[in-house]
Protein backbone atom coordinates (compact mmCIF):
# COMPACT_ATOMS: atom_id res chain seq x y z
CA UNK A 1 0.00 0.00 0.00
CA UNK A 2 1.37 3.38 -0.96
CA UNK A 3 1.29 5.82 1.91
CA UNK A 4 0.02 9.29 1.12
CA UNK A 5 2.59 11.99 0.59
CA UNK A 6 2.60 14.32 3.63
CA UNK A 7 2.31 17.30 1.30
CA UNK A 8 -0.90 15.85 -0.14
CA UNK A 9 -2.26 15.43 3.37
CA UNK A 10 -1.70 19.11 4.04
CA UNK A 11 -3.53 20.06 0.83
CA UNK A 12 -6.44 17.84 1.78
CA UNK A 13 -6.68 19.57 5.12
CA UNK A 14 -6.74 22.91 3.35
CA UNK A 15 -9.48 21.70 1.03
CA UNK A 16 -11.58 20.66 4.02
CA UNK A 17 -11.74 24.21 5.29
CA UNK A 18 -12.42 25.79 1.92
CA UNK A 19 -15.76 27.57 1.97
CA UNK A 20 -18.92 25.96 0.81
CA UNK A 21 -17.09 23.07 -0.87
CA UNK A 22 -20.18 20.92 -1.48
CA UNK A 23 -22.20 23.67 -3.09
CA UNK A 24 -19.23 25.07 -5.00
CA UNK A 25 -19.01 21.68 -6.71
CA UNK A 26 -22.37 22.42 -8.39
CA UNK A 27 -20.60 24.83 -10.75
CA UNK A 28 -19.67 21.78 -12.86
CA UNK A 29 -23.34 21.52 -13.91
CA UNK A 30 -23.25 24.89 -15.69
CA UNK A 31 -25.42 24.87 -18.83
CA UNK A 32 -26.80 21.39 -18.14
CA UNK A 33 -30.33 20.86 -19.39
CA UNK A 34 -33.07 18.24 -19.49
CA UNK A 35 -31.85 14.79 -20.48
CA UNK A 36 -28.34 15.29 -19.12
CA UNK A 37 -26.94 12.48 -16.98
CA UNK A 38 -24.20 13.92 -14.81
CA UNK A 39 -22.35 12.34 -11.94
CA UNK A 40 -23.30 14.17 -8.73
CA UNK A 41 -26.60 15.55 -9.99
CA UNK A 42 -28.29 13.62 -7.16
CA UNK A 43 -26.52 15.91 -4.70
CA UNK A 44 -28.02 18.94 -6.41
CA UNK A 45 -31.41 17.24 -6.21
CA UNK A 46 -30.85 16.81 -2.46
CA UNK A 47 -30.17 20.56 -2.27
CA UNK A 48 -33.45 21.26 -4.04
CA UNK A 49 -35.23 18.81 -1.77
CA UNK A 50 -33.73 20.41 1.33
CA UNK A 51 -34.95 23.87 0.37
CA UNK A 52 -38.45 22.80 -0.60
CA UNK A 53 -38.37 22.40 -4.37
CA UNK A 54 -38.29 18.62 -4.87
CA UNK A 55 -40.38 15.99 -3.07
CA UNK A 56 -38.84 12.80 -1.73
CA UNK A 57 -38.24 10.45 -4.71
CA UNK A 58 -40.52 7.47 -5.32
CA UNK A 59 -37.44 5.27 -5.50
CA UNK A 60 -34.95 5.01 -2.66
CA UNK A 61 -32.50 7.65 -3.90
CA UNK A 62 -32.29 10.65 -6.19
CA UNK A 63 -30.79 9.78 -9.59
CA UNK A 64 -28.16 11.70 -11.58
CA UNK A 65 -30.61 12.32 -14.44
CA UNK A 66 -31.76 15.86 -15.26
CA UNK A 67 -35.37 14.73 -15.62
CA UNK A 68 -38.69 16.49 -16.07
CA UNK A 69 -39.36 16.65 -12.34
CA UNK A 70 -36.00 18.32 -11.73
CA UNK A 71 -36.68 20.77 -14.53
CA UNK A 72 -39.97 21.73 -12.84
CA UNK A 73 -38.17 22.17 -9.54
CA UNK A 74 -35.51 24.29 -11.20
CA UNK A 75 -38.13 26.48 -12.87
CA UNK A 76 -39.87 26.94 -9.53
CA UNK A 77 -36.54 27.84 -7.89
CA UNK A 78 -35.74 30.40 -10.58
CA UNK A 79 -39.18 31.92 -10.23
CA UNK A 80 -39.04 32.01 -6.43
CA UNK A 81 -35.61 33.68 -6.41
CA UNK A 82 -36.54 36.17 -9.14
CA UNK A 83 -34.01 34.70 -11.56
CA UNK A 84 -34.51 34.44 -15.33
CA UNK A 85 -36.77 31.39 -15.74
CA UNK A 86 -34.88 29.26 -18.26
CA UNK A 87 -35.29 25.73 -16.89
CA UNK A 88 -31.54 25.35 -17.32
CA UNK A 89 -28.59 25.56 -14.99
CA UNK A 90 -27.40 28.87 -16.39
CA UNK A 91 -24.79 31.04 -14.73
CA UNK A 92 -27.30 33.17 -12.78
CA UNK A 93 -28.91 30.05 -11.35
CA UNK A 94 -25.63 28.34 -10.49
CA UNK A 95 -24.47 31.54 -8.82
CA UNK A 96 -27.65 31.66 -6.72
CA UNK A 97 -27.38 27.98 -5.77
CA UNK A 98 -23.79 28.36 -4.59
CA UNK A 99 -24.47 31.55 -2.61
CA UNK A 100 -24.50 31.34 1.18
CA UNK A 101 -28.05 31.33 2.44
CA UNK A 102 -30.49 30.86 5.28
CA UNK A 103 -31.21 27.24 6.18
CA UNK A 104 -34.98 27.72 6.36
CA UNK A 105 -36.81 26.03 3.50
CA UNK A 106 -38.15 28.30 0.76
CA UNK A 107 -41.40 26.35 0.92
CA UNK A 108 -41.99 28.14 4.17
CA UNK A 109 -42.81 25.15 6.31
CA UNK A 110 -40.60 24.58 9.29
CA UNK A 111 -41.98 22.40 12.03
CA UNK A 112 -40.48 22.48 15.50
CA UNK A 113 -38.05 19.58 15.75
CA UNK A 114 -39.78 18.19 18.82
CA UNK A 115 -42.90 17.51 16.78
CA UNK A 116 -40.91 15.76 14.07
CA UNK A 117 -39.41 13.29 16.52
CA UNK A 118 -42.44 12.34 18.57
CA UNK A 119 -42.35 8.70 19.64
CA UNK A 120 -45.58 6.78 20.16
CA UNK A 121 -45.57 4.46 23.16
Amino acid at each position, binding site marked *: RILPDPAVTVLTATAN*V*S*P*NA*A*WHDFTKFLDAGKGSQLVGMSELKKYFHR*FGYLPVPDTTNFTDLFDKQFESALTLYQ*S*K*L*SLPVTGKLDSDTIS*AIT*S*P*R*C*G*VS*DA*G*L*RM*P*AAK*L*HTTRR
Partner: protein
Amino acid sequence: FAYFYGKPRWAPAKSLTYAFSPNHVISYVSSSDIEAIFHRAFSRWSAVIPVNFTKAKDYSSADIKIGFYKGDHGDGEPFDGVLGVLAHAFSPENGRFHLDAAETWAVDFESDKSKVAVDLESVATHEIGHVLGLAHSSVKEAVMYPSLSPRTKKVDLKMDDVEGVQALYGSNPNFKYSSLQSENSYNH
Protein backbone atom coordinates in the same frame (compact mmCIF):
# COMPACT_ATOMS: atom_id res chain seq x y z
CA PHE B 1 -43.37 38.39 1.17
CA ALA B 2 -44.52 34.97 2.30
CA TYR B 3 -45.58 33.23 5.47
CA PHE B 4 -45.11 29.80 6.98
CA TYR B 5 -47.97 27.33 6.50
CA GLY B 6 -50.84 28.24 8.75
CA LYS B 7 -49.53 31.81 9.06
CA PRO B 8 -48.32 31.36 12.65
CA ARG B 9 -47.68 34.48 14.76
CA TRP B 10 -46.95 35.35 18.36
CA ALA B 11 -50.14 36.04 20.28
CA PRO B 12 -50.20 38.14 22.27
CA ALA B 13 -47.09 39.72 20.79
CA LYS B 14 -46.96 43.07 22.53
CA SER B 15 -43.71 42.31 24.31
CA LEU B 16 -41.24 39.55 23.52
CA THR B 17 -38.03 38.74 25.36
CA TYR B 18 -34.77 37.43 23.92
CA ALA B 19 -31.61 35.98 25.43
CA PHE B 20 -28.28 34.56 24.34
CA SER B 21 -27.26 31.02 25.18
CA PRO B 22 -24.54 31.13 27.83
CA ASN B 23 -23.04 27.93 26.42
CA HIS B 24 -23.19 28.43 22.67
CA VAL B 25 -21.14 31.54 22.00
CA ILE B 26 -18.33 32.81 19.78
CA SER B 27 -15.25 34.20 21.46
CA TYR B 28 -13.86 36.59 18.83
CA VAL B 29 -16.77 39.03 18.95
CA SER B 30 -17.38 40.71 22.30
CA SER B 31 -20.69 40.09 24.01
CA SER B 32 -21.28 43.84 24.10
CA ASP B 33 -20.88 44.04 20.32
CA ILE B 34 -23.22 41.10 19.82
CA GLU B 35 -25.81 42.63 22.16
CA ALA B 36 -25.59 45.97 20.36
CA ILE B 37 -26.02 44.29 16.98
CA PHE B 38 -29.08 42.34 18.08
CA HIS B 39 -30.54 45.41 19.79
CA ARG B 40 -30.34 47.28 16.47
CA ALA B 41 -31.75 44.31 14.54
CA PHE B 42 -34.74 43.94 16.88
CA SER B 43 -35.27 47.71 16.83
CA ARG B 44 -35.72 47.69 13.07
CA TRP B 45 -38.64 45.30 13.36
CA SER B 46 -40.16 46.99 16.42
CA ALA B 47 -40.09 50.32 14.54
CA VAL B 48 -42.67 48.99 12.10
CA ILE B 49 -44.91 46.78 14.28
CA PRO B 50 -46.38 47.31 17.77
CA VAL B 51 -44.06 44.75 19.37
CA ASN B 52 -41.29 45.48 21.89
CA PHE B 53 -38.23 43.29 22.28
CA THR B 54 -36.36 43.29 25.56
CA LYS B 55 -33.30 41.35 26.64
CA ALA B 56 -34.20 38.76 29.27
CA LYS B 57 -31.99 38.05 32.27
CA ASP B 58 -32.94 34.39 32.31
CA TYR B 59 -32.12 32.43 29.13
CA SER B 60 -34.43 29.51 29.87
CA SER B 61 -37.56 31.64 30.14
CA ALA B 62 -36.87 33.94 27.17
CA ASP B 63 -39.27 33.85 24.24
CA ILE B 64 -36.43 34.00 21.71
CA LYS B 65 -33.34 31.91 22.41
CA ILE B 66 -30.24 32.84 20.42
CA GLY B 67 -27.08 30.76 20.12
CA PHE B 68 -24.09 29.91 17.95
CA TYR B 69 -23.97 26.20 17.10
CA LYS B 70 -21.58 23.98 15.19
CA GLY B 71 -22.48 21.02 12.96
CA ASP B 72 -25.19 18.70 14.23
CA HIS B 73 -26.73 20.49 17.17
CA GLY B 74 -29.78 18.34 17.74
CA ASP B 75 -32.60 20.04 15.86
CA GLY B 76 -32.40 17.92 12.72
CA GLU B 77 -30.79 20.71 10.69
CA PRO B 78 -27.01 20.38 11.10
CA PHE B 79 -24.82 23.29 10.10
CA ASP B 80 -22.30 22.71 7.31
CA GLY B 81 -19.18 24.70 8.15
CA VAL B 82 -17.92 27.84 6.45
CA LEU B 83 -20.57 29.52 4.23
CA GLY B 84 -23.30 27.26 2.79
CA VAL B 85 -26.04 27.59 5.38
CA LEU B 86 -25.42 30.58 7.64
CA ALA B 87 -28.24 30.34 10.18
CA HIS B 88 -31.81 29.22 10.72
CA ALA B 89 -34.69 30.11 12.96
CA PHE B 90 -38.02 28.58 13.81
CA SER B 91 -41.50 29.89 13.13
CA PRO B 92 -43.74 31.33 15.91
CA GLU B 93 -44.04 30.58 18.72
CA ASN B 94 -40.97 28.37 18.93
CA GLY B 95 -38.37 31.10 19.31
CA ARG B 96 -35.21 29.13 18.55
CA PHE B 97 -32.64 31.20 16.63
CA HIS B 98 -29.43 29.40 15.62
CA LEU B 99 -26.31 30.81 13.94
CA ASP B 100 -23.56 28.65 12.43
CA ALA B 101 -20.57 29.05 14.75
CA ALA B 102 -18.23 28.06 11.90
CA GLU B 103 -18.86 31.29 10.00
CA THR B 104 -16.56 34.29 10.21
CA TRP B 105 -19.10 36.60 11.79
CA ALA B 106 -18.26 40.22 11.12
CA VAL B 107 -19.21 43.31 13.06
CA ASP B 108 -17.32 45.69 10.82
CA PHE B 109 -15.88 44.91 7.38
CA GLU B 110 -13.31 47.68 7.81
CA SER B 111 -11.57 45.72 10.51
CA ASP B 112 -12.44 42.22 9.29
CA LYS B 113 -10.71 41.57 5.97
CA SER B 114 -11.73 37.92 5.57
CA LYS B 115 -13.17 37.04 2.16
CA VAL B 116 -15.71 34.80 3.85
CA ALA B 117 -16.79 37.30 6.50
CA VAL B 118 -20.56 37.40 6.97
CA ASP B 119 -22.35 40.42 8.39
CA LEU B 120 -23.89 39.36 11.70
CA GLU B 121 -26.39 42.22 11.77
CA SER B 122 -27.79 41.35 8.33
CA VAL B 123 -28.31 37.71 9.26
CA ALA B 124 -29.76 38.65 12.66
CA THR B 125 -32.29 40.97 11.00
CA HIS B 126 -33.26 38.22 8.51
CA GLU B 127 -33.69 35.51 11.15
CA ILE B 128 -35.81 37.76 13.38
CA GLY B 129 -38.16 37.96 10.41
CA HIS B 130 -38.54 34.16 10.59
CA VAL B 131 -39.01 34.26 14.36
CA LEU B 132 -41.87 36.71 13.76
CA GLY B 133 -43.48 34.50 11.11
CA LEU B 134 -42.15 35.67 7.75
CA ALA B 135 -40.92 33.06 5.27
CA HIS B 136 -38.58 33.82 2.37
CA SER B 137 -39.34 36.59 -0.07
CA SER B 138 -38.76 36.61 -3.82
CA VAL B 139 -37.81 40.29 -3.73
CA LYS B 140 -34.03 40.37 -4.13
CA GLU B 141 -33.63 43.63 -2.20
CA ALA B 142 -35.77 42.46 0.73
CA VAL B 143 -34.19 41.43 4.02
CA MET B 144 -36.21 38.19 3.80
CA TYR B 145 -34.58 37.11 0.49
CA PRO B 146 -32.94 33.76 1.31
CA SER B 147 -29.31 34.38 0.30
CA LEU B 148 -26.61 36.80 1.40
CA SER B 149 -23.16 37.08 -0.15
CA PRO B 150 -20.08 37.34 2.05
CA ARG B 151 -18.96 40.89 2.84
CA THR B 152 -22.45 42.21 2.09
CA LYS B 153 -24.62 44.26 4.41
CA LYS B 154 -28.41 44.21 4.09
CA VAL B 155 -30.05 45.48 7.24
CA ASP B 156 -32.70 48.00 6.18
CA LEU B 157 -36.23 46.65 5.95
CA LYS B 158 -37.74 47.09 2.52
CA MET B 159 -41.36 47.73 1.67
CA ASP B 160 -41.91 44.02 1.06
CA ASP B 161 -40.62 43.13 4.57
CA VAL B 162 -42.69 45.86 6.20
CA GLU B 163 -45.93 44.97 4.44
CA GLY B 164 -45.44 41.29 5.30
CA VAL B 165 -44.83 41.75 9.00
CA GLN B 166 -47.49 44.43 9.38
CA ALA B 167 -50.07 42.06 7.92
CA LEU B 168 -49.27 39.76 10.86
CA TYR B 169 -49.02 42.27 13.71
CA GLY B 170 -50.40 45.58 12.49
CA SER B 171 -48.47 48.81 12.19
CA ASN B 172 -46.52 50.62 14.85
CA PRO B 173 -48.54 53.84 15.34
CA ASN B 174 -45.33 55.83 15.06
CA PHE B 175 -44.26 54.23 11.80
CA LYS B 176 -44.34 56.31 8.64
CA TYR B 177 -43.62 54.86 5.23
CA SER B 178 -41.58 57.95 4.52
CA SER B 179 -39.15 56.79 7.21
CA LEU B 180 -38.03 53.94 4.95
CA GLN B 181 -35.04 54.77 2.81
CA SER B 182 -35.61 56.81 -0.33
CA GLU B 183 -34.97 53.73 -2.44
CA ASN B 184 -37.95 52.03 -0.82
CA SER B 185 -40.16 55.06 -1.30
CA TYR B 186 -39.25 54.99 -4.95
CA ASN B 187 -40.18 51.31 -5.23
CA HIS B 188 -43.48 51.93 -3.46
